[in-house]
Every structure is written in structure tokens, then in C-alpha cells.
């Protein structure tokens, strides 16, 4: 039986929330020409129906709260319930209140900025970007402004990204008007240094790296890379998606990176919310500080304030002051753990991934770049098995699968990131399930899952004749 759409639960004339007692007439207030002719077709449901609908939908959904969710590069760690209560404390502040009435909120932002600078080894920061990719764009625009300011804007038109990079890296470079060039990975899974050298030139604006990279490998030659970049006048960009592996242990700033974006919804426990909202602060070295977006939070004699005084700024990247309630959560996380807690969390995220890697190898999975992997690793099923079928089989066994088919340089990739908040026995149960799948009949695997709310969906149909709204004729 199909789970009903809220529109299918709707009944003409039914009312839910009523927030207004005496309703003024539209015609008395607004000339008819401005008014819509027919009301929007919104659902008409009572409050109990609303509650049942969304409660039921949530019961057709898994999350970290229900299930092990080892998505590579997504850092699906536990989101403390404390943080939800923390965010509620700041729910009712307007972005345009008098700054004297939001000193607590501004102080929190300022303090968080200081913590993040300390953890990344950066010298200035913006909390404005709303997500990782938004931070990437901000960071690359800062680099662009820097080159332009130095008169190299017209020559430096290329951004280098490794072939193992997140898709958002090349997409960001494109959005910032750059040409993207891929740098191949070496046989050890790290950036091919010789290839990189060949690409470095006065035409290159930036190199975007994730470290550890998407194979879970720390770029051991990072200091040489950053030296080469510096010599070539190239800015080094750090994609913070994988910071969880090293937070507290090593800092992008010390590695020679000029710009860092952070995903507060990965490393710093802001819940993913089914795909957002997140928060993507960007830290920079001092030479890039003049180009940060406005406003920034500053501390002055009269307290904290939003500063717009940054003449070389790239401008605004978002309205208001960023995803503030996400910042509250990250602040709470850092203050709860402190440096020792953050370092322990990072180390255990690595230990969990290494341990799970061993367990999977014992069960017949291959790890093509089997170096000293950190918080994640990329495995392959044995010959003859498809990553997709493994994923769907896992669903049937009650686990959320790893990221599949990424990074692109590994065929049938299963990119596994267990995170530090998972227990040893959860990893073992997962490995057990992964092993079990290899013993299943081929047909069983190809048709899994069986008992999920829906089974394999017709993706082709959705692509060829997408039906994108209830009223859409498809």
C-alpha cells in the first residue's frame, strides 16, 4: 500500500492551525489587482493528521539515531541532543537587533572563530558560509581576489584538483570562473608529486586538496607540496570534509595551507538534517584576511560587533550572519570536548576505520590503496560483485551502506567512514553482515532489499519522465 501524500490526506475546507481570531478582509487592504485569483493548492489538514503524517514519514526514514551510517567523507557521527537544547536558547534573536542586545550571540561567534582558528592554524575567519561547498566558493573567491589584487588575476586562470577530489571542488572552481585541471594520484593513492610539478605554473591560481584525501590517506608529502605551491605563487586550499581524522593532531595551517573551509556538520556534530542546513566557516592566513567576506565579528572597546570595514572584501556571500544556530552547536561541541576530547575523538575515528578495514579484508573485501588509512578507507567487493548490490544487501540487513562509486579512481568503490562514535561491536556486526552478503545467492543480492518501506526504485523512469510535484502530469 502506498504511504499517502499529505495532499491525499487533504480535505477541502479542513483547518489546522488557526493563528488569527478576527480576520480582516483582503479587499479593504490591498487593491484587487495585486491579489491572486485562486488560492495556492496547499494541503488542508487538521493538526493530528499533520502529526501522523510526518511521524509516519519519519518512521520510513533512517538516520544516525537509528542505524550505523558509515558514509565516506560525510562523517556521520552522533549529534548530541544537548545541542538541540542549546540552539533553542538562541531561537528568538532578529538579525537586525541593536548589537547591544545580542552581545551573547556575538561573543559566541567570536569565541567559536577563535577556537576554529586555533584548531586549523589560521589567522582570520568568516563564519558566514552556509555549507561546505559555500565555504569552498568563498575560499576560492578570496584566492581570486588576492591574485587580482596582486595583478595576477588575468594570468592565473587554472585550479588544480586531484582526481580523487570531491565533486564539489571542480564544481566550485568552475563557479568561480576558473578552468579546472585534474592531477592524477600516484600508485600509493597520494597526489603524484611529479605530475603536480608539471602542472604548477604562473597560470595556476590554486590547488585544492583534501587531507587526508578521499582514499583516507594522509598526503605525506604535503610540506613539499606547499613549498612548491608557495614558490609558484599558488594558493593552497584545504577542503575540510575530512578534518575529523586529524583535528587537534595536525593543522592545515601548519601544513602550509592558505585557506581552509570547515564542515561544522561533519567534524563538529551539527546534524545533517537529511542534507542540510550545515555551516562552512572559512579560515585564512593573514595575507588573505583583507579579502574575507563581510561582515566579520570583531571585538571592540564597547563589546562585540559586526564589522563591514574590509575594503578589499570579496563582498557578501550570504544574507545576515551565517547559519548561527549551527554555530551554537559547534561551540557546544568544542567546549564539551576541549582539546583532549577532540584529539581522542579524532584518534578513535582513525582506529575505528583501521579496525573495520582489517575486518573487511578478512572477509574478502579488497582495499586497493591499502596504505596507512585514517578515518576512512575505500574497499572493493571481490570480483563479480557490484558495489550497488552490496549496498542494497546491507539495507536488507539493517545497515546504511557506505558511499558507493566514489572516489572515481576506484572501481566499484565502497568508501567507508565509521566515525569515532560507533562501538567495536557495531563495527563487528557490520563486518559480519558484509561477509554474509558475499555468501548470498547472486539473485538474492541483485534483488535486495526486500523488507524496506519500498524496494529498488525505477531511477530511469524518474530521469526520463520526472514527476516533480503532486500536480505534475509527469
Amino acid at each position, binding site marked *: 500500500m502506498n504511504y499517502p501524500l499529505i495532499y491525499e490526506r487533504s480535505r477541502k475546507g479542513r483547518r489546522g492551525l488557526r493563528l488569527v481570531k478576527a480576520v480582516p478582509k483582503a479587499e479593504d487592504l490591498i487593491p484587487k489587482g495585486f491579489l491572486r485569483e485562486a488560492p495556492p493548492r496547499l494541503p488542508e489538514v487538521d493538526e493530528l493528521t499533520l502529526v501522523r503524517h510526518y511521524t509516519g514519514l519519519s518512521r520510513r526514514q533512517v538516520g544516525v539515531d537509528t542505524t550505523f551510517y558509515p558514509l565516506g567523507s560525510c562523517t556521520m557521527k552522533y549529534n548530541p541532543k544537548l545541542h538541540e537544547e542549546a540552539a533553542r536558547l538562541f531561537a528568538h534573536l532578529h538579525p537586525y537587533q541593536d548589537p547591544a542586545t545580542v552581545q551573547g550571540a556575538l561573543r559566541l561567534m567570536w569565541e567559536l572563530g577563535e577556537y576554529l582558528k586555533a584548531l586549523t592554524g589560521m589567522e582570520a575567519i568568516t563564519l558566514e558560509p552556509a555549507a561546505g561547498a559555500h565555504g569552498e566558493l568563498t575560499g576560492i573567491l578570496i584566492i581570486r581576489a588576492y591574485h587580482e589584487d596582486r595583478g595576477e588575476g588575468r594570468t592565473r586562470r587554472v585550479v588544480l584538483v586531484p582526481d580523487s577530489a570531491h565533486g564539489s571542488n571542480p564544481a566550485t572552481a568552475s563557479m568561480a570562473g576558473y578552468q579546472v585541471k585534474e592531477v592524477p594520484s600516484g600508485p600509493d593513492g597520494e597526489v603524484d608529486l611529479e605530475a603536480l610539478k608539471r602542472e604548477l605554473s604562473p597560470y595556476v591560481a590554486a590547488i585544492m586538496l583534501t587531507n587526508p584525501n578521499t582514499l583516507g590517506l594522509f598526503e605525506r608529502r604535503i610540506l613539499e607540496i606547499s613549498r612548491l605551491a608557495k614558490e609558484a605563487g599558488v594558493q593552497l586550499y584545504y577542503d575540510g570534509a575530512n578534518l575529523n581524522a586529524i583535528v587537534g593532531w595536525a593543522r592545515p595551517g601548519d601544513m602550509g595551507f592558505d585557506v581552509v573551509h570547515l564542515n561544522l556538520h561533519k567534524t563538529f556534530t551539527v546534524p545533517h538534517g537529511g542534507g542540510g542546513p550545515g555551516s562552512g566557516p572559512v579560515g585564512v592566513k593573514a595575507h588573505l584576511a583583507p579579502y574575507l567576506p563581510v561582515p566579520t565579528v570583531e571585538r571592540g572597546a564597547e563589546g562585540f560587533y559586526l564589522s563591514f570595514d574590509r575594503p578589499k572584501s570579496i563582498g557578501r556571500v550570504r544574507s545576515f550572519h551565517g547559519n548561527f544556530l549551527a554555530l551554537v552547536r559547534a561551540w557546544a561541541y568544542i567546549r564539551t570536548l576541549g582539546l583532549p576530547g577532540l584529539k581522542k575523538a579524532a584518534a578513535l575515528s582513525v582506529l575505528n576505520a583501521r579496525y573495520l578495514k582489517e575486518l573487511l579484508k578478512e572477509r574478502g573485501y579488497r582495499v586497493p590503496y591499502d596504505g596507512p588509512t585514517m578515518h576512512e578507507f575505500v574497499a572493493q567487493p571481490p570480483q563479480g560483485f557490484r558495489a550497488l548490490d552490496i549496498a*542494497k544487501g546491507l539495507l536488507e540487513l539493517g545497515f546504511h551502506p557506505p558511499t558507493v562509486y566514489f572516489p572515481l579512481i576506484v572501481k566499484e568503490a565502497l568508501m567507508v567512514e565509521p566515525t569515532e562514535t560507533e562501538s567495536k561491536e557495531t563495527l563487528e556486526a557490520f563486518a559480519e553482515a558484509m561477509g554474509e552478503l558475499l555468501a548470498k545467492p547472486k539473485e538474492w543480492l541483485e534483488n535486495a532489499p526486500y523488507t524496506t518501506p519500498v524496494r529498488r526504485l525505477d531511477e530511469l523512469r524518474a530521469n526520463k519522465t520526472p514527476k516533480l510535484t503532486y500536480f505534475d502530469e509527469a
Partner: protein
Amino acid sequence: MDYTPHTEEEIQAMLEKVGVETLEDLYAHLPEEILNPPIHLPDPMPEWAVLEELSRLAGENLPARKAFLGGGARFHHVPPVVQALGSRGEFLTAYTPYQPEVSQGVLQATFEYQTMMAELTGLEVSNASMYDGSTALAEGVLLVLRETGRMGVLVSQGVHPEYREVLKTYLEAVGASLGTIPLEGGRTPLVEVPEEVGAVVAQNPNFLGALEDLAPLAEAAHRAGALFVAVVDPLSLALLKPPGAYGADIAVGDGQVLGLPLGFGGPHFGFLVTKKAFVRQLPGRLVSETVDVEGKRGFILTLQAREQYIRRAKAKSNITTNAQLTALMGAMYLAALGPEGLKEVALKGVYMAHRLQELLLTLPGVEAFTPKPFFQEFALRLPKDPLEVRRALARRGFHGATPVPREYGENLALFAATELHEEEDLLAFREALKEVL
């Protein structure tokens, strides 16, 4: 407290299995020079102490429950039922629904969201959300530039100044040019649209709150081969002609007014709605209905070839994380109120805003600036610097008088009223304003 489950014994057993002796060894291959940097952070605290410190910080703010502040975000009721449903752990802690078999909750709710946004705007296709109104606008304009192949943009001064700033940042990145149509008498005048312009942008109600008849401008845009982008207040669309009905090809805006907590500015959500013809240029996620192998209805992410994780440098945008949860809460709000309830909320605010203007205009030195009719906010010219007025009001426990940038005129401030205001609130505010002027 670090939320890790490991006991000492387990750590030892695991270390042994992976072949190292200590946790430090896991980092042994990192360059020594960068390992274990000195980092100064406050000491860890138990959670009650964290809450206590946060409560102290929260106490340094003066929450603005019955505020009269406008400027693209307003005080509206935040329904507990929406908050309760939106904070169900499954919605809160899920990732992007890449595995549809176990993600029907988020996917179906998004499909419903897309439907509601299309209905509100009178357009056909909504993506699953953008970060906020300003980035939705920027992405909407970029879509138009891709579609038209032109590099010129003309934007009304009636568009929120921060949105225009963000648009400027995004357009500079791709080398597009941005021209402005100055307001005349608080409204966007009809102008000629030059040939190189791909996108014409206006806002309704505009930044000063005034309602605009944008049909002529949209028509002018179309005549010039450009597309028309409308920035809209979704709450207003319970009442007002939808952008699809006056020729908009794209509608964008911010969802805060749909029952989301202000949260000092975020997270809210941005929406981006357009015509089916442009769907393959649309940035961000899209959900489609489909069927499973047994013919059962299901929902799935679709047309993913537009997106960064498939298309990389050729993607329509770099967006990945969006504002899924807050967008779903916006949809819950719309469903909770329904068309009638939403209209009532819109009307009450319109009524109260007009009444507020009437009351404030009785104060000496206060002049009308936004022409009637307006929606739920309006600008007044004050006899004093609005920054000072805002502060003096705050000292009396009132929040009002959002300073309007100088480009619109001197000493202008925005005032708003919503469903949360009653006559006595307006009267009390007038008294306070009288005292500080």
C-alpha cells in the same frame, strides 16, 4: 565527555588488530614538524556546565519576541507542532537521501515541499532548497545566464540590498555585469531592457515593503529576450498574485517567514522555483516520484547529472548540503496552516502593518516613505538617526526601526507588524517611539 564508546580494553584489542601500539602511532606517518601543535582551547566541561555557560550567553541577549523589526526577516509564530515534528531524530540525523529505500521519509516530504513551493509561486519546478534567499537569487540568476547565454543582469533597487550584494559576489565570479534600476517613489519603474541583459530581477513586496505590479517589467524583459526573476516573500503569496502569473520565469526567496525561528539570521532556507523548460539547468537536488520493482510508489533523487558529485566541473552549481530540514519545516508549516490559515496570517500582518504606519505617522517629524499598499513592513523617515532610535527603543525593551541603507535616502527605517501584534502592542510601541524621538 567525548561521545566515544570505547573502553580501554577495547582500544587495546583494536590497536593490536591494526598492528600499532598506541593511538599516537596512528599519526606516526605524518610529518613530525606538524604533529601535535600547541593549541589553546578552554578545558572540557560536563554538559550541565556547557548549558549553564550558554544560558549565560543567551542571557546577554534581549530576545525580541514582539519585535517590530523588518528587513527580510520578521517575527512570526514558530508553531511547536512544526518544531516537534522537525526535530524527530530520523529527520535530524539523516544524510542526503542517496539510498531511497530507507529514506522515503525525507524524499516524500521533499516531494511535497516541491509541490507546495510550485503552488505558492505559480511555477512548475522547485528544487529541494537553497541556503537562503540571497544565494537562491544568485543561483537563479546564474541559471538564467546559462539558459540565455547572456552575461548582463539588471536588478531593481527594490531587491533586498544584502541579496544584491551576494548577487554581485556571485556574478563577479563568472564575469557577468550587474546594473541597477533605481526605485522611483518607492517602486520599480518600467525600463528598457538592453539586449545584452539575460536576467531582469525585481522583488515583490520590495525591500521597502511596497507591493509592485511587475507584469510590465517582466514583459519588457521577455521582449528583449531576457528572463524575469522575481524575489518573493512566500507568506505574501497566500494573498498576492503569484510570480508565475505576472510573467516570472524564476521565483526565489527566503523561508524564514514560514514559521522558522529567526535564530539571529539562520539557518532558514532559500527556495528556487522555475518552469519545467529550465529544469535541466536547475542547481541542487530534485525529487521525483517513481515506482519500485513491485510497482509501489516511491520517491527518488532525479536528474542528478546536473549535480557536482556526478558532473564535477560541469555541474550546474557546486551546491551539495542545502537547507533540507528547515525547508521541510517550512513545508510542515504550510501544511499546518493550509491555504486559509496562511491567508489569515498574511492578512492580519498586512492589517496591523497599515495600522502601525497610521499610528506612527501621528508622531512629530515622522514621514511616510513606502507607498501604500505594502505588505507587512514599511519604511518611515525619522527625524533622527535610526541607529540611535533602534538603540533607544531597545533600552525601553522594544525592538524596532531596522536602519535602511543610505542608498534609499536619509534616516529611513523599516517597521514591521505580523500576526503576533495586537492593537495594544502597537500603541505601546508608539509610546516608546514617541519618547525616543
